[in-house]
């Protein structure tokens, strides 16, 4: 080993951390004044490092406890906010999917319905007031209103909505159909009128043409 190689290991030799390289370093060290001088300098440096005074520290435990309580409170508040946000999102999803919320625009109006019934409306036989006795009971101000009455009323309102919606669709279909038939009539009328005009024209031509032909002939 040369001096440059040995000097890399001198700090480890000084602190007793050399292992496998120790024999080679020690052998060179024993016969090299330059490395011995370097080693001495490192020993002095170690003494200087030891002599440097350390600050005296006394931890204020009261401050530690107070700050710990404050940080825990901040952390708890953040968790609470996150929990509330999560519960809010879950509630919204429940409202939308659980109550079968339906939102759409119809006739320039925003319509929001919940628990909307299925769309397979039978347009033939519908009774918009399926529970007339319940309605009669609710219309009587003297009779007490129970939860069951409210439920039946809610069902009636939903049925009425469905009836009106289905009726509106039927009427729209009827109007569309009538319009199409009218167009057909108009088209048919136009064609017949044109045919009539053609026939009339031909008749006039024939009559006038016969009369002119008959001028020269004796009756």
């Amino acid at each position, binding site marked *: 080993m040369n001096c440059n190689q040995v000097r890399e290991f001198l700090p*480890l030799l000084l602190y007793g951390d050399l292992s496998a390289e120790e024999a080679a370093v020690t052998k060179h060290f024993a016969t090299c004044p330059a490395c011995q001088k370097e080693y001495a300098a490192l020993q*002095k440096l170690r003494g200087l*490092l030891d002599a440097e005074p*350390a*600050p005296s520290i006394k931890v204020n435990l009261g401050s530690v406890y107070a700050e710990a309580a404050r940080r825990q409170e901040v952390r708890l508040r953040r968790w609470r906010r996150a929990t509330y946000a999560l519960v809010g999102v879950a509630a919204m999803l429940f409202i939308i999917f659980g109550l079968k919320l339906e939102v759409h625009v119809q006739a320039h109006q925003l319509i929001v319905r919940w628990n909307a019934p299925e769309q397979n409306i039978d347009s033939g036989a519908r009774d918009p007031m399926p529970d007339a006795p319940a309605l009669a009971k609710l219309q009587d101000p003297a009779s007490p209103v129970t939860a069951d009455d409210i439920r039946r009323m809610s069902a009636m309102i939903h049925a009425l909505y469905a009836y009106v919606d289905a009726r509106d669709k039927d009427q729209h279909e009827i109007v569309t159909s009538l319009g199409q038939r009218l167009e057909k009539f108009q088209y048919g009328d136009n064609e017949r009128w044109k045919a009539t005009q053609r026939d009339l024209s031909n008749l006039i031509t024939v009559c006038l043409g016969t009369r002119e032909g008959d001028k020269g002939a004796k009756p």
Partner: protein
Amino acid sequence: MGHPDAELIGRWQKGDTSAFEELVRRWQQPIGRFLARHVGQTDLVHDLSQEVFLRLYLARTRYRENGVFSTWLYQIALNVARDALRKRRFPVEPLCDREPVANGTPVGELCEQGELNRTLTDCLAELPEALREVLVLRHYEGLNFEQISILLRVPASTLKSRFSAAVVRLRKRLEELGWQEAPEERAP
């Protein structure tokens, strides 16, 4: 003879705050010394020490019995020191701007020991963080390279190289500033 750290930790985790206070009393000086050497700003050491034991208090449930408490505590102190160094706004005054001590002046003739200590502290602060960490942990805290390896998550062989480089650099820097060993000293 006090209770071992592991016993104090166990009592503290069960709710005995006096055990925590005993740990603080036992470790506040070594941690303060470590922070002073590593950060190099003595006016910050008190606040940083408070932060170390605050984080220790908040991490009570995270300590596992198979760990070594001192390693865990030094890990916390190291993180606090690194955070402080990252946040620091003041530049380290380069020592080359200062007037060097007259050439060949032996240590014993320096005007004040305080000036030497300040110079030494500043030379330590000039070292790259990776070298300084190893030097402080090995020399001042007396940890061996295997313990430092666990703490810093760096192989022991790499740490040995860093340690040698730190010592040699420190020695050369002091020499540039006029420090010289006494000529009569020789190697053993």
